[in-house]
């Protein structure tokens, strides 16, 4: 293990790997990524594998458009020897109340201002797009054909390999036990395998981000909670887009491999780091799918699992350096969509750390917005 580094990134999910790659690509040297388990073992590896541009805030729309355009060419840009399995087969957002439908219409105005090709669709058209959709219980839908599916393990692996080729060193199964600060300045990172002197630390630990920040006495306004998912046996292709509903509380997509991945939120989850599976989720998920997309209810569930959402007060990430501790950067609070924001996370953080002109203005995602009361809450999160 190195004993000195210019930059230490903590966490090797999509965020940590993308930040490392983007720093190295812009010429930064001597970068180390520390991961307590293996690459992509945390929230990224447990996510729902979708990406979308249908958001309700202008910031999220711009960031997801930037990320989508990167994903479209990521195999080539990252010179990946595998395939990230990008498939732009759309997201169909379904509403079952007039209120939710009105929100979709408002969202689409924001999306169109950002150049996102989304549109309202009639229930007849929704039924053409997804023939097994139970439109009897719906009031309307919105659709964007450029949203879709992406393999989180392969995408993170592509960033990891590209970063490694540029000289980034990854220490897996290495746990951070302390962060050394002297006179308000980062001095080093302590791990269970040895210490590294550094002046810059990037907290990309998502679910564990607030715990890590506490090591240097910083309270981040975040909490983590379990979100569960299940997957079915693979079957012949029968559904192109992700079907997503906020009020009905559901997202479900058929992967290119043929299995269906689906999830929903559970109210009243404890705010901790548990990712066990619950029977309650399985029952609620089964009831929801049987009601909304009955044909999928005929399939067998083969596994359920869970990952952590790292929730911020306005359900948007924090990209910033922390005042009072020079050299301490945070990229966290992704609120369930850190995977699909991977490209923008890496770009924004690398430019911030290196003092470069920002490609995309993410200053609204500063840490102080919560203390300022300057929130702009994302309305469309499952």
């Amino acid at each position, binding site marked *: 293990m190195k004993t000195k580094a210019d930059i230490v990134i903590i966490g090797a999910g999509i965020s940590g790997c993308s930040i490392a790659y983007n720093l190295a690509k812009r010429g930064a040297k001597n970068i180390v990524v520390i991961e307590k388990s*293996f*690459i*992509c*073992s945390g929230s990224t*590896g447990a996510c729902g594998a979708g990406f979308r541009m249908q958001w309700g805030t202008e910031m999220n729309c711009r960031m997801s458009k930037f990320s989508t355009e990167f994903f479209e060419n990521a195999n080539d840009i990252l010179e990946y020897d*595998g395939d990230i399995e990008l498939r732009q087969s759309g997201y169909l957002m379904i509403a079952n109340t007039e209120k939710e439908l009105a929100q979709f219409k408002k969202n689409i105005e924001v999306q169109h201002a950002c150049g996102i090709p989304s549109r309202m669709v009639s229930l007849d058209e929704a039924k053409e797009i997804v023939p097994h959709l139970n439109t009897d219980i719906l009031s309307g839908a919105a659709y964007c054909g450029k949203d879709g599916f992406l393999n989180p*393990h*392969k995408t993170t*692996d592509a960033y990891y390999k590209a970063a490694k080729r540029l000289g980034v060193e990854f220490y897996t199964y290495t746990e951070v036990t302390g962060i050394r600060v002297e006179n308000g300045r980062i001095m080093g990172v302590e791990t269970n395998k040895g210490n590294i002197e550094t002046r810059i630390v990037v907290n990309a630990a998502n679910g564990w981000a607030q715990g890590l920040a506490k090591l240097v006495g910083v309270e981040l306004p975040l909490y983590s909670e379990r979100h569960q998912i299940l*997957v*079915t*046996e*693979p079957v012949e292709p029968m559904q192109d887009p992700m079907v997503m509903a906020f009020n009905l509380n559901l997202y479900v997509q058929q992967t290119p*491999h043929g*299995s269906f991945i689906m999830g929903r939120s559970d109210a009243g989850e404890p705010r901790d780091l548990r990712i066990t*599976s619950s*029977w309650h989720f*399985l*029952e*609620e*998920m*089964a*009831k929801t*799918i*049987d009601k909304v997309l*009955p044909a*999928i*209810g*005929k*399939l*067998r*569930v*083969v*596994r*359920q*699992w869970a990952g952590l959402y790292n929730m911020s007060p306005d359900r948007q990430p924090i990209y910033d350096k922390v005042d009072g501790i020079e050299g301490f950067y945070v990229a966290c609070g992704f609120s369930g969509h850190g995977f699909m924001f991977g490209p923008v996370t890496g770009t924004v953080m690398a430019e911030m750390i290196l003092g470069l002109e920002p490609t995309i203005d993410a200053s609204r995602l500063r840490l102080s917005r919560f203390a300022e009361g300057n929130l702009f809450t994302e309305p469309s999160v499952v």
Partner: protein
Amino acid sequence: MDENTIICRCSDVTLKEIRELISQGYVTYDEIKRLTRIGMGPCQGKTCGQLVLREIAAATGQSIADLSFHNIRPPVVGVKLHLIAEEAEKHED
């Protein structure tokens, strides 16, 4: 053994693919699973798990007993979702 031998019958993963990943440094079951889908299918690793662990052990010199398998998650066997939904509804109210 013929390297084209299928190790994972759910996802058609061959011995060659497993050995290639191990040689690239992916030396845990969890990492190999995530890049190949081995153990993600209907058998949930009940068929392929031991075979993959044996390959890792042979390549790294570790004992199989010291290697970790993926987390065991429900259900134990595949169950149709509508059956779970119907049962759940019966027990409501």
